[in-house]
């Protein structure tokens, strides 16, 4: 492991083609970050984690992809497995909406929620397109993967990458990881694995993801939005404010119409006037 230097961009390259779903990353993450985890529940397939949240900063997705009909040998796609994590987006939706300034970009180019600044408004949760952030019920603030900020400051690689037995999770300097990913993709395509593809390695998705992936199916199969749907919350600012302003103007006009004419205080007419009288008088 090369020296970790502040000022350089670091991240994860997660190669799902070699993930075996062992969940060592989940365990190592919880151990290092002292996360108690949620009560295990029986979910679909072998999943008992459910989703990323305030207690699960790594989550191994076990996606049942077993085909209905018998397939040939060596398809390797019966189960899609992916160790999911915060993507540390270059254009991060969570940072886009955070009103307190609690979410910052660190000296390692990662996205970090400062637990002593966050006040738990949960605006970041509504904005994150990857359902990464949750409220840590012990500290009562929004939390997610820190890319082991404290370990990086100590010159150590993140716990999940350290624990991964198949090198599905690789940590390193971003430029080096991208080169590694390109080579791996080329090897897979050369072996005839045409469905392999990279997600987030370039600027198409949120300006590039510091935690990017090699996938074995379309992004949506892993609950990842494709480039067309990877959009920042602020995209809705202009249209929404304009509609509000136009409504305010029309509302003002309506108010003025309601106030027009009245030279003297209107008097009340007796109740029970029929509809015709009402239409004529009111």
């Amino acid at each position, binding site marked *: 492991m090369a020296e970790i230097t502040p000022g350089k961009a670091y991240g994860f390259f997660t190669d799902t083609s070699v993930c075996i779903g062992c969940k060592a990353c989940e365990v190592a993450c919880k151990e290092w970050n002292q996360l108690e985890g949620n009560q295990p529940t029986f979910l679909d397939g072998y999943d008992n984690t459910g989703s990323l949240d305030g207690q699960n900063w790594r989550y191994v997705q076990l996606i049942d992809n077993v085909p209905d009909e018998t397939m040939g040998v060596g398809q390797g796609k019966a189960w899609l497995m992916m160790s999911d994590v915060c993507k540390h987006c270059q254009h991060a939706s969570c940072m886009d909406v955070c009103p307190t300034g609690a979410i910052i970009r660190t000296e390692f180019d990662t996205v970090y929620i400062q637990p002593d600044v966050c006040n738990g408004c949960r605006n970041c949760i509504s904005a*994150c397109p990857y359902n990464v952030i949750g409220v840590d019920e012990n500290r009562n603030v929004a939390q997610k993967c820190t890319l082991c900020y404290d370990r990086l400051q100590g010159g150590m690689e993140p716990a999940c990458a350290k624990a991964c037995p198949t090198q599905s999770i690789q940590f390193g300097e971003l430029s080096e990881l991208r080169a590694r990913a390109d080579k791996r993709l080329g090897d897979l395509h050369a072996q005839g694995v045409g469905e392999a593809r990279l997600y987030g390695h370039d600027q198409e998705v949120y300006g590039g993801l510091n935690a990017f992936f090699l996938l074995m199916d379309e992004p949506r199969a892993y609950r990842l939005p494709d480039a067309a749907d990877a959009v920042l919350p602020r995209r809705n600012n202009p249209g929404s404010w304009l509609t509000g302003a136009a409504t305010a103007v029309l509302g003002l006009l309506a108010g003025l119409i309601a106030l027009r004419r009245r030279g003297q205080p209107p008097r009340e007419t007796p109740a029970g006037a029929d509809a015709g009288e009402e239409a004529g008088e009111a």
Partner: protein
Amino acid sequence: MTLMAQAQHFAGPPHWTWYIVPYFFLAGLSGGCYALATLLRLRGERWDEPAARLGYYAAFATFVPCPVLLTLDLTQPLRFWHMLWNTTPGAQGFNFRYWSPMSVGSWALVAFGLFVTVTFVEVLVRDQVVRRPLALRAVRPLDGTLGKLWILVGALLATFIAGYTGVLLAVSNQPVWSDTWTLGGLFLASALSGSAALLLLLTRYRAEARPSAGAFDIAERLFTLLELVLLVLFALTLASAGTFDEAFGFPWVLLWLLALGGLVPGLRGLFTARLAVTPEGAVVAQSARAVVAMPALVLVGVLALRAAVILSAQF
């Protein structure tokens, strides 16, 4: 119902629920009442002043719970002031992020709080509820142009408070909320119609404000029409994004029925009565039941609309 390719949504819900629904409701009414009261005071007749004061009272009463509800909704309520002040080591200073509606809304709420409170004190003094010399001296500067300017700025903030909550929802990646550009306008129109209905209801209990009841009645009808147009646009934008069923499916359809029920009095009025209170005519005196029931129906609709929008995207 889907008109175009369905937008992909994988975002998780922020769990904005039982504090946020009433906050959106009360903030809308507070902003709407202040704006209508200002319109009455600046553009109405001399005899509209009691109704304007009634509007300022209602604006203050509905405003007071708002900061409390917002603070209680935070998972760290004692850090509510972090909305305004950045405590990041090395980056301390005011927080104002114009691109984040929640940040802008926090400042607007503080500013509007000042305006609604000062105006409340002013009407208390003018109504001689408060007679202390200090209070009389304090509101004297608001007698002339400065007073008009004060309520005008307050009304701008009020309008913002009534509508920004819709924009706040839209500036997210949540299904339904982020699929439409109509929410800011829809919430504002709904807040205005709800406020007109509330003030119409309150005029029943304040005799000197009754001459303005007709204006509230007509305003409510027009705001309802505006709300209906925006509601249709809201449904169309969701249909084009493929999230119509999520917003209008069961059980939310029950809330939508209540919301639509709230439009009935205003729309009925549009078809059955003239859009003016003429000197020759008047406001038709209605039965006590109708006077209370119709505005109440509108207010229930305003609340149901917000509940349907807020809850349907999250559950």
